[in-house]
């Protein structure tokens, strides 16, 4: 990375570097919970997706959901990480109203996935972010404090839902990198189908570790952990605010206390939740209700066969095979639906035009209407038809935009629109010549001016001819014939 792109915070001739590590909690895509058969569907009536195990009734025992194990392994493979053949589920003990067991089943010393990496495509090149580990754990229920004035209500629908905690190394250095990292992680998991990455529904949240140090320093500073931040924007805001808070302390000659903090989104500041001294003693120990998890090489090999082409590989293929620029390829592979859409469109149409239309007109519409590509108002099939109409000269690029605007309304077939509205481009030289003759006749004064040297008027004639053709005249042909007529 070049020097000038470094993210540094300046203070009176001093430059501070920000060190960031993320613990991302990603909800495993699975029909049922990690240790019970209850549904994980989002948005159900409170406490309707709760089994006796989830509510920790006496004598109830956890039974591992093998599908969640496979999802974690799959994610590990996607992160180019080591899959641990033996891992252990531990109990993390603490009391809270929405934690029915009085402990969370998690993995402490022996996680299911070890070290891996994620490649970030930054504007000035690639950067590798190390993954420390990925482990499986249960989510807690939800405490609701604002419905009843006197009581806290508890919804256990989420209790026991499988989460993957993905811990990065402290390799991130700026809010931008955090943005790209989260998006890349989400993209990989969506390619794999292991987490839907839906931040609104809480499927992806993160604890953000932040420390600062003077540029050039090699030791890490004291870090603070900002708990449970649920959007990229808030993560970025929290990092900037927290880094500045730490730098202010250092500038005042004070020390930074290692502590857990919360981000107040309204005030745009972090505040202390608990200090290191007050840190919970979770009394981790191996859950005696569950045997150590043993994973066979056969299972890993079987899962490997299911791994689709991932964003990095797909990007390389798009560049090599379709001659896309790295920038275009990065955009098109960023999420699996986009790349699938792209590949569907180019099955029967021109790659260059498809790239431009998807990243241009289509993205603009999606943005404007706040839609995902999976909800695109124009299907891949109809977009490729439109591109073919442009390519074979049936319509001009300009007309195509008009057609596209109409296609948006109910995914209409461009062939029908062009036919019904008579938008087909006029490419018959005789017809063009006729209408040019008409223009010349009607504007004899301008013709005289042009001939006397006013070259700029050429554009006027093109405009008039186009107008005469009701916009359907082939622009190249109009140009050519006009030149012949006026200069001849």
């Amino acid at each position, binding site marked *: 990375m070049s020097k000038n792109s470094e993210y540094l915070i300046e203070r009176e001739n001093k430059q501070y570097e920000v060190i960031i590590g993320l613990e991302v909690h990603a909800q495993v895509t699975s029909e049922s919970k990690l240790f019970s058969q209850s549904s994980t569907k989002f948005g159900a009536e409170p406490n309707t997706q709760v089994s*006796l195990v989830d509510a920790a009734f006496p*004598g*109830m*025992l956890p039974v591992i959901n093998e599908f969640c194990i496979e999802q974690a392994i799959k994610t590990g493979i996607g992160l180019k990480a080591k899959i641990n053949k033996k891992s252990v589920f531990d109990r993390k*003990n603490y009391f809270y109203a929405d934690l029915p067991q009085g*402990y969370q089943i998690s993995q402490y010393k022996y996680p299911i996935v070890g070290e891996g990496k994620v490649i970030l495509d930054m504007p000035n090149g690639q950067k590798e972010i190390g993954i420390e580990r990925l482990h499986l754990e249960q989510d807690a229920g939800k405490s609701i404090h604002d419905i009843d004035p006197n009581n806290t209500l508890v919804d256990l629908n989420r209790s026991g839902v499988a989460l993957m905690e993905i811990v990065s190394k402290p390799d991130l250095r700026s809010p931008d990198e955090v943005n790209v990292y989260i998006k890349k992680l989400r993209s990989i998991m969506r390619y794999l189908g292991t987490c839907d990455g839906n931040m609104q529904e809480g499927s992806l949240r993160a604890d953000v570790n932040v420390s600062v140090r003077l540029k050039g320093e090699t030791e890490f500073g004291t870090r603070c952990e900002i708990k449970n931040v649920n959007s990229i924007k808030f993560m970025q805001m929290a990092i900037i605010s927290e880094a500045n808070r730490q730098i202010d302390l250092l500038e005042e000659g004070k020390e930074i206390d290692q502590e857990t903090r919360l981000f107040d989104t309204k005030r745009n500041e972090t505040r202390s939740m608990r200090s290191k001294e007050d840190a919970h003693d979770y*009394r981790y*120990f191996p859950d005696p209700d569950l045997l150590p998890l043993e994973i066979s090489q056969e299972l890993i090999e079987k899962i490997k066969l299911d791994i689709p082409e991932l964003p990095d590989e797909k990007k390389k293929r798009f560049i090599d095979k379709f001659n896309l620029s790295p920038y275009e390829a990065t955009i098109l592979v960023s999420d699996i639906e986009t790349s699938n859409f792209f590949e569907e469109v180019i099955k029967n149409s021109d790659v260059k035009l498809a790239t431009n239309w998807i990243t241009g007109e289509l993205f603009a519409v999606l943005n404007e209407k706040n839609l995902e590509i999976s909800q695109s108002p124009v299907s891949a099939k109809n977009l490729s038809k439109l591109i073919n109409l442009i390519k074979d000269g049936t319509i001009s690029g300009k007309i195509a935009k008009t057609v596209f605007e109409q296609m948006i309304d109910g995914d209409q077939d461009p062939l029908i629109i062009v036919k019904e509205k008579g938008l087909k481009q006029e490419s018959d030289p005789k017809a063009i010549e006729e209408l040019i003759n008409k223009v010349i006749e009607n504007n004899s004064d301008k013709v005289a001016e042009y001939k006397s040297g006013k070259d700029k008027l050429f554009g006027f004639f093109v405009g008039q001819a186009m107008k005469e053709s009701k916009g359907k005249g082939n622009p190249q042909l109009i140009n050519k014939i006009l030149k012949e007529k006026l200069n001849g």
Partner: protein
Amino acid sequence: MSDITSQSLFELKSNIKEKKLSSEEITKAFINRAEKSKKLNVYVTDNFEKAIDQSKKFDSNPNLDFKLPGIPIAVKDLFCTNGVRTTAGSKILNNFVPTYESTVTQNLWSQGAILLGKLNCDEFAMGSSNETSFFGNVQNPVGENLVPGGSSGGSSAAVAANLTPVTIGTDTGGSIRQPASFTGTVGLKPTYGSCSRYGIVAFASSLDQAGPMTKNVRDCSMLLEVISSFDQKDSTSIDYKRNSYSKELSKDIKGKKIGIPKEYRVDNMPDEIEQLWKNGILYAKDCGAEIIDISLPHTNYALPTYYIVAPAEASSNLARYDGVKYGFRSPGQNLIEMYEKTRSEGFGDEVKRRIMIGTYVLSSGYYDAYYLKAQKVRQLIKKDFDDAFSKVDAILTPSTPSSAFKIGEKTNDPVSMYLNDIFTVPINLAGLPGISIPAGKDKNNYPLGLQVIGKPFDEQNILNISYALEDKINFKNDISDWWLSE
């Protein structure tokens, strides 16, 4: 025909099969006796009305192929029973009625048995005398003001007092074998993983096992056959081929090698226990078994190891009793206060003691010194047995270092109480099967038991040895029915 309630399971079965007795007659006989035996305090919750209905239902269309055809059975109140209050002997579950059935009790009902009621036990199975129960202590039918042992004290007393033909208990450190020994009955703790823990109120998950408690070894073999099963709802349940224990039961133990561990000769062991053991050895020889001296060098560490591992697991297992979801709640101004009041008022002293010990040994800074070390010692204890079982087929020891003691005698001395389990806890730590059979009496005429320990999944072998010894010992419990009221 002898009195109904004094009959063994096999006698009752044959009387039912031969239509000499109906399920209703048997059920009513046990209920009648229970009504006159309230002084023993064995029942926490009875199920008498429903039991009579079910016995009538059985009689109307009896399935005689069942292994427990129309047999009424009371069970320890640690097994969750659908629609019948389950307390674990605790105030905190005083009002708890499960909507589900434990696998082990379901296995009983699936073979035709009928639930008579729920039997008293130490609170959350923590105790060796049944004195920690919220529902009061149980009287040992052997003698007034004697403890029946614990934690399955209601169960042992009920079998000894003919209040249930057989019963099931749970054993974490001796909770089946010690009360069996104190009441002159038979109690077997199966190999860890044999009987499902699903639906049993958990004490220490890596040690808890359900097992049969009966009047004799043959009944024990039949009950084990019924309750032992692989269960996918318990991840520690083990899928292996289980014997037809009662069918394969045999007194032929000729040539069996029986180990005698020298470390079980503990200091201050009463002479009568020593004598009991010697007699057991002689009987085994009489049966043609070969006696081999063995060593289990880490025996001394078993009790301290147990009193780290079991409370550690318990401290976490009991965290769910917090007043939020079910059971007893003492209101507070806020969540923390509600927790504190609920758990202070809902749990008894012994349970609180163990929660505190367990919390302490798992705490950061102490974990390595206590819990982790205890787990390592546990492996050594297990290895002792593995080594021993390369030389012998089974091990013979006393079940307890003393006979039943007086109610209140040890309540202020937890360590002396814990020492009661000195011969039984190593077997739980090693996950092995162990059975206690009545083998003699002390100077007060109180029963004493011998313990036979087997290899993992070798229940058949220890049942056979016990069956042979039982025959030689010819123990007779003389119980005077002193508690009966009109």
